[in-house]
């Protein structure tokens, strides 16, 4: 039996049923809420571990719910959106959501996102503030200001190192382009985003130099990047 408690917020009965069936089949504990108001109430009374939140609820704007929850809890929130517009997802991520799924999504994808979030949760709960960050073969020594991939020290430019630190500090979370550029360059102009693309490309090349084919950093088209928790 999986220990995690998941709150599913979804107004459409068919999709709610689909998610419930999927979660039950994979031994997750779960609750469902059809409206924003009931979701907020259940979230505060039962304190679930993960929230799956549909953005298009009849009574409340999804981004508003995220803001309210973030006022008192850091529980991972995975946003589910039928809207193809990237701006909705970006708004939700900037408001504090951790990840997103776009309808129509496959069951496989839903489970994959849950596993990622689960790992992130485990990491958040076990790790005490430490000057050393480890993720698979990747190791960052914040105090010394250097990073290793396995035994090999990574030769990073100052910008690449800064970028790596921002990604590592938010491991498992999808970061929007403007969030990253704000952190690294302090702005979000077109040339900042272009710079981000370039440094991210060189950083990834250096990170993939290891023996095994591990993708440390995922791209989310039109949205941003995420460092995977391995």
């Amino acid at each position: 039996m999986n220990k995690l408690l998941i709150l599913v917020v979804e107004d459409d009965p068919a999709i709610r049923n689909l998610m419930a069936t999927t979660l039950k089949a994979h031994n997750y504990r779960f609750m469902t809420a059809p409206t924003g108001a009931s979701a907020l109430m259940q979230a505060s009374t039962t304190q679930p571990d993960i929230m799956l939140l549909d953005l298009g609820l009849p009574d409340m704007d999804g981004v508003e719910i995220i803001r309210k929850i973030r006022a008192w809890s850091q529980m991972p929130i995975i946003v589910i959106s039928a809207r193809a517009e990237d701006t909705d997802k970006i708004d939700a991520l900037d408001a504090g959501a951790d990840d997103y799924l776009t309808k129509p999504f496959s069951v496989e994808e839903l489970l994959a996102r849950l596993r990622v979030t689960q790992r992130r949760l485990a990491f958040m709960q076990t790790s005490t503030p430490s000057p050393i960050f480890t993720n698979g073969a990747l190791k960052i020594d914040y105090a010394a200001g250097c990073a290793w991939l396995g035994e090999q020290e990574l030769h990073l430019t100052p910008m690449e190192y800064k970028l790596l630190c921002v990604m590592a500090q938010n491991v498992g979370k999808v970061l929007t382009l403007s969030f990253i550029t704000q952190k690294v360059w302090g702005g979000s102009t077109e040339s900042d985003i272009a710079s981000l693309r370039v440094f991210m490309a060189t950083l990834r090349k250096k990170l993939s130099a290891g023996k095994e084919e591990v993708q440390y950093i995922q791209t989310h088209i039109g949205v941003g990047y995420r460092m995977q928790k391995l």
Partner: protein
Amino acid sequence: MKRVIHEHVLVCLSSAPSNANTIRAAAKLSQAFGGTMTALYVQTKSSDQMGTEDRRRLQRHTRLAEKLGASVSTVAGDDVAFQIAEYARISKATKIVLGRSVAPKGRLFAPKPLTEQLVELAPYLDIYIIPDSAGKNQRRRNSATKQRILPSIRDVLITIGMLALSTAIGFVFHRLHFTEANTITVYILGVLLTALFTKNYMCSGISALAGVLLFNFFFTEPRLSFRAYASGYPMTFAMMLFSSLLTGTLANRLADHVKRSTQTAWRTQVLLETTQQLGQAENENDILEVIADQLLKLLNRPILVQCKNGAAIRRFPEGEPVEIPPETASQRFSFQSGGEAFGDVLVYGDALEPLESGILHSILGEGGLAIENRRNARQKEEAAVLAKNEQLRANLLRSISHDLRTPLTSISGNAENLLTSGEGMEEADKRKLLTDIYEDAIWLIRLVENLLSITKIGEGNARLNMTTELVDEVITESLRHVHTKTHPIETEFADELLLSQMDARLVSQVIINLVDNAVKYTPEGSKIHISARKQGKEILVRVADHGSGIPDEMKPRVFDMFYTGNGKIADCRRSLGLGLYLCKAIINLHGGEITVTDHTPTGCIFAFTLPVSEVTINE
């Protein structure tokens, strides 16, 4: 259907102080009827002699009328009633508002009052008369006109000179013993010339009288006295005076007429030029420029055209200062058509002459009309585009609804089978049905993605979400959405970083569609090769397959909407003919090109370009 009669109220402008009340009354009337209002100024001979006070008041009234929503027009002609009636007929006025005109009483042959003349000339008009304190005004007007009655020094000198010259010629004739008739003719000629060269009507009259007196004094017996011995002389004097006066008056009229025709010709020329230039104007801004240019040509003083949308056009005569704040303008004219104000024209410097202001109003009227026409034309164009889009949308909807039936039938039918008789089915059969449901659902998902993209590009550039992207990142991510286990996909990227401005989701859709097509139309196990490299100022992305290729005659049409290979291609399950159409639309929207060529030895290559974006990297 209820027929709405459009009321058009005409009000006459004058310099009379009571005119303001008349204008306000007319405005109320037009408002009450929900109609439009035109303020008409009839320019007559006497308006040229108007005092400054009157001129200013007339301008105030013009401005008042404009403020109350009237469009202002000017016509020229001495017969005021005829001009008003003509204008009312042309402009389809239904009501006319006049201040009460006081008929000069006690004068023989007094002209009929304006209202009566109007009733005769335009019996179909409703005439409203607004009472006023006209008596006072009448007197004041007389005193105002008197200022101009005194002749100028130049006129006096010309008159005296002409008389002196006539007298001198008379003396010569006398010495040569010509008859008196010759001398009389010389005097009459003098009066004629005086009338032609002086501006004041009094000059010719005075000169006629003085001519008779001089003739009497110098050339009749007894000479050098005002007496005359011969009994026929009084008659001669009377005849002489009469013909002199008549000649003078006729000559005056002639001079007037010449002046008026010159002005009319000039006015016509300016207006014609304006009309021609307005005809060539491409947009509203051009129209405003033409108006400003023409007004500068007409008035030769600083002009400021202020538009309702905030645009301002300034024009200066050469050598004038460049700064002209709107507050210092001496006159402001609103600029409108069809009841909608487009902006204001500000004129600097002295008050305008009536002729100038007449032309100015005509130019503004033309300009307003031109703008209104332009707007109407644009609205029509937009409506046409909208109708075309609507047509396209309807076609799309029809075609889609039709083609949706097949997968939906398969999904609902298979699900129904499983629900009703799933129990007794073999596991393998069940699996087959479930696979079909899954595949059809996936097909529908792809279709919906494409449709969403089509609506997005249908709305033009505004909806594009352009960001700088790494092309190989976009390709790699797109390939994650292509589910194929049957076709190995190879990628080959340039070493350099290929950055481009794009809507990543749409470009990703292009790659997915192209790769999906390659998977769909090539036999299992055949390789698909994707590459991206820089080519001059562009990035070239190629998707190559090893299928049977596309026949040459089909190549030009593969990007058409709703074009499907119609079973010519093996294993063609179904296709809406939207995928490649969408690819082309998206790539073109990004300023690139998409092409299809043959691959060697077999297969085809779809290649598209995207502009390279030059960026500065912030270290």
